């Protein structure tokens, strides 16, 4: 019988992983209850694509039995990070923490300089784009220019993107029409509540949401004020750092977290609201991310405790003053990070069902990841599409004409799914905020 080995002293990465995550991996009793919850185990069918397999591989790496790059990197990279396994686990293994510790270790392991092309794109986005609101906005404006000028039609008809990268081509088509920046509500603004002020909230704008989906942000703020919130948009807020954490760039994630904590704690808001499941999960975990940082731990915990999803706030303050009836069948695709990390499941459904005239139908496998997974659909296009196509089959069975999500990544992924099905004329994907705003006559 093999005993756990002490990691080789010369292998500093294994040593780090051992102290960071070994005890967590040891909590796994290998019962396999996580297997049916895992979308990549279902689509790939091998144990290394399952949570139990991945946890065991992290353990093996920490024990110095396998190589970080050669053996561990791919199975970890192929994980969507949807964390559905955590909800299925009977013993509460903190899979998300294990995953991030593994990613950080892989990133820092000695042989990590053998990066492929995709990793360079990843790095470019993570290090040089997302953390900088101005750069993101410039891109947003460029995309808007691209969409407005008819250049996009030219690109689409020439099929050039498809030849370069099917992943990018899909994403290009899934991008929402970007609203003119003149409509964007800028940070530093305070929007008063319409009528009585029931709650003071600080709004987290996000990086992609702010630049590419500023329309959804604007509608979120309008809905909040309509529901009785005074909405503060703290200045100097920035990207939540979720994608950095997920890609093993923990130090950068910590730096971003600290900037956000500083920006938000200056406002005297009761609640910090966001409208993106992935960002929300990341904000909720600042307490964990900075737990070892004596200077920041307390503030990080306080920040996390105040963080709420838009659906929680609107449900709490509801009912919304709807003015329009909705025609047609609507279904809801859970955001994994909203469902599995923030544990918000009922509020978006109840809000949807409260819209006058709506027919709400639950889709089989609503709790399964759509395989957008941050930028998973860019990094692992084929695997992602395999999972998405299965999801679309279930969605079609509901006969829904609208699929609603609460996360930009999920929303775009569902748009990609609709395109792949050739169903763009009969079906659309919307953010929860968009459909609620429309029913409230805000659009």
């Amino acid at each position: 019988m093999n005993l756990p080995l002490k990691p080789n002293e010369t292998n500093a990465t294994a040593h780090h992983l051992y102290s960071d995550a070994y005890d967590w991996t040891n909590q796994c009793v290998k019962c396999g209850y996580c297997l049916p919850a895992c979308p990549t185990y279902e689509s790939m069918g091998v144990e290394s694509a399952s949570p139990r397999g991945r946890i065991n591989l992290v353990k093996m790496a920490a024990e110095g039995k396998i190589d970080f790059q050669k053996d561990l990197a791919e199975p970890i990279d192929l994980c969507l990070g949807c964390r559905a396994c955590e909800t299925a686990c009977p013993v509460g293994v903190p899979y998300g923490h294990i995953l991030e510790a593994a990613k950080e270790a892989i990133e820092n392991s000695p042989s990590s300089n053998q990066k492929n092309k995709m990793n360079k794109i990843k790095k470019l986005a993570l290090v040089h784009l997302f953390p900088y609101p101005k750069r993101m906005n410039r891109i947003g404006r460029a995309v808007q220019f691209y969409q407005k000028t008819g250049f996009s039609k030219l690109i689409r008809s020439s099929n050039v993107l498809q030849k370069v990268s099917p992943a990018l081509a899909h994403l290009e088509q899934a991008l929402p029409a970007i609203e003119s920046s003149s409509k964007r509500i800028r940070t530093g603004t305070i929007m008063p509540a319409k009528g009585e002020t029931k709650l003071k909230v600080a709004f987290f704008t996000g990086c992609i949401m702010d630049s590419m989906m500023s329309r959804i942000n604007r509608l979120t703020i309008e809905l909040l004020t309509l529901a009785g919130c005074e909405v503060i948009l703290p200045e100097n807020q920035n990207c939540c750092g979720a994608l950095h954490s997920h890609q093993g760039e923990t130090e950068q994630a910590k730096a971003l977290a600290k900037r956000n904590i500083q920006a938000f704690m200056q406002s005297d808001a009761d609640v910090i609201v966001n409208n993106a499941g992935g960002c929300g999960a990341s904000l909720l975990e600042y307490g964990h991310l900075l737990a070892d940082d004596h200077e920041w731990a307390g503030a990080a915990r306080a920040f996390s405790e105040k963080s709420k999803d838009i659906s929680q706030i609107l449900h709490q303050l509801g009912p919304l003053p709807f003015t329009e009836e909705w025609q047609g069948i609507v279904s809801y695709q859970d955001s994994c990070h909203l469902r599995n990390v923030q544990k918000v499941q009922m509020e978006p459904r109840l809000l949807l069902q409260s819209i006058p005239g709506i027919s709400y139908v639950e889709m089989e496998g609503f709790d399964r990841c759509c395989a957008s997974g941050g930028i998973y659909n860019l990094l692992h296009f084929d695997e992602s599409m395999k999972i998405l196509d299965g999801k679309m089959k279930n969605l079609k069975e509901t006969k829904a004409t609208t699929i609603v999500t609460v996360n930009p990544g999920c929303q775009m992924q569902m748009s990609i799914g609709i395109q792949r099905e050739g169903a763009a004329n009969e079906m659309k994907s919307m953010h929860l905020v968009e459909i609620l705003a429309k029913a409230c006559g805000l659009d």
Partner: protein
Amino acid sequence: MEKEALDDLRQIIPDDRMFLDLAERYCYSYDASFGEYLPEIVIQPKNAEEISEVIKLANTHKIPVYPRGSGTSLSGGPLPVKGGMVIDMTLLRDKLIIDRENMLAIVSPGVITANIHKKAEEAGLFYPPDPSSSNVATIGGNLLENSSGPKGLKYGTTKEYVIGLEVVTPTGEIIRTGGKTVKNVTGYDLTRLIVGSEGTLGIVTEAIIRLIPKPQSKQTFVAHFNHLIDSGHAITSILSSGILPSALELMDNACIRAVESYRPSGLPLQAEAILIIEIDGHPLAIEEEINKCADICKAEGASYVKIAETEEERQTIWSARKSVSPAITQMGPTKISEDATVPRSQIPAMMDRLNNIREKYELNLVVFGHAGDGNLHPNIITDKRNITEMKKVELAVSEIFEAAIELGGTLSGEHGIGTLKSPYMEMELGITGVNMMKKIKEAWDPNNILNPGKIFPDKGQTRVVLVT
């Protein structure tokens, strides 16, 4: 693996279903028991013909082969203890036919057991064996390990339901045993021999399983006892009163405390035992039976009895039982889970013996289980990095088995022998009994290809060795 063998294997299994890389091999090196053995190769066949060819090749090149379902085994069933080849059976899942007229299901081995439950119930039928792992475990694994769960008391184990099989033998032939008839007395009952053979006598590639009418209704109640001995008497009184509950579960004081500190729900910390009893059948009959059971518990000294009035209350009662496993793993990272089983009249005596073992070795030993059928689950919670304690665990495990056998019981009620209990086989069966079984194995599998190292102890092995 030798290059020649590998080249031959490539003629049978395509590269994308054959894994030689270290990561994937490590992923098939474990199950839900204790132990880790690295296979040389993992393959994922898709049909009986491929498996047949692979087994013939394994005989030619003398490669050990281990069939594996979802790897939920608690006895080490699929562990590749002698290296060689793990056959992952999870891709064989294309067939799940419910034959309503004949009340049967015809299934591929990789089908998840819960899917059989679901499909059978949709047809108004019922497949009773319900291992806790049924949402994950494959039916192939269930029937080779002869699994069961809380419903074993009334409905028995998997073997009660298997009436026909398609099997690849240890030498690579494809045979059929039994058939679709409930009555079948033709020749030796090879079906029964293979079911529970733990993958040492064949690889099941299709099974015909019997279904029964779905019970119309069920009711559940819970009883608390301040004295363990009273709960034992309540169990025997209920069972001798002519009532056969569909489940009769027991939690001891250590379990109660563990569950309460894991997820506080107002369980009685002073109670020495909690019984959960479920009765299924016709609504009128169970109404009468459940009241009678509750009366018996009160008469035997239960301090509290509660019959669930709503489905929500029923779930609350069961959630305490279902929290046992997660609750006790909070006490330590390593869980040695046993399933020694005694005749149900001996449950109080067995509980007593287990208490003594707990005190003697000063171990975290908790007991829960399917008391109605005498199937107890003594669990020792420890840390395998603590060598001194692990040595004590080895001794305690031996004593648990000795106690079970002395009380007229058996080493395993539902998990199988695997690697963890093989050293004790002679204790239960005697040397001649074990030799008879070995003769069968040698006749079926002359090259000892299929799942070697299981059921039978290595020479001179008389107790389990958990750490070296």
